[in-house]
């Protein structure tokens, strides 16, 4: 398995501002992903974070709103830009560790509240 950390663990932000969430894994992962979990709902994939190139976004998510970086195998960031209250969610990163098959392990999540 992999140990995945995220920071911040939670934040309260004002409308119109941006927040960058960091995700660090303790071992090399083959794939990293970012998910959103809105209150009372299941997880929705935002994008696949690709090392050294642009992320691959799912339908309904765009780079201008959710820019993602992955400069190396063990680190990725997700920025939530120009936030509105509708962006209040838990944001989770996950990784698939090489050699583990394709189990996906999740970070502890970042609970974002936008006022």
């Amino acid at each position, binding site marked *: 398995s992999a140990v995945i950390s995220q920071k911040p663990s939670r934040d309260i932000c004002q409308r119109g501002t941006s927040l960058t969430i960091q995700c660090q894994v303790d071992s090399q992962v083959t794939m990293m992903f970012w998910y959103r979990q809105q209150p009372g709902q299941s*997880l929705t*994939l935002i994008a*696949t974070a690709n090392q050294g190139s642009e992320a691959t976004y799912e339908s309904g998510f765009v780079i201008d709103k959710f820019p993602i970086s992955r400069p190396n195998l063990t680190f990725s960031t997700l920025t939530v830009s120009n936030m509105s209250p509708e962006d209040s969610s838990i944001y989770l990163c996950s990784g698939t560790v090489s050699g583990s098959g394709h189990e*996906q392990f999740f970070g502890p999540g970042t609970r974002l509240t936008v006022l």
Partner: protein
Amino acid sequence: EDKVVQSPLSLVVHEGDTVTLNCSYEVTNFRSLLWYKQEKKAPTFLFMLTSSGIEKKSGRLSSILDKKELFSILNITATQTGDSAVYLCAVGNQGGKLIFGQGTELSVKP
């Protein structure tokens, strides 16, 4: 469109009961089905199933996959209050993405 459907959406049982959670799916390029337990924030991994008919077991939890009928079940025997959580079923495709079901919220009463 790929979809994963879990049932029931919520369940209340008493300690010692046995529960069965269901997950059905329609996903192109199926690779695996995964079960997670979510208590507060991060889902914690329980099982990954890739082959039909082979039961995976961990303590009081077990799971099995039927790739012909496109479903999986998660069984929990002798439930305890610590089993109270949301149980998530997710299907992985060949591209490595996970499609999640809505989750089953299990509440175990003492």
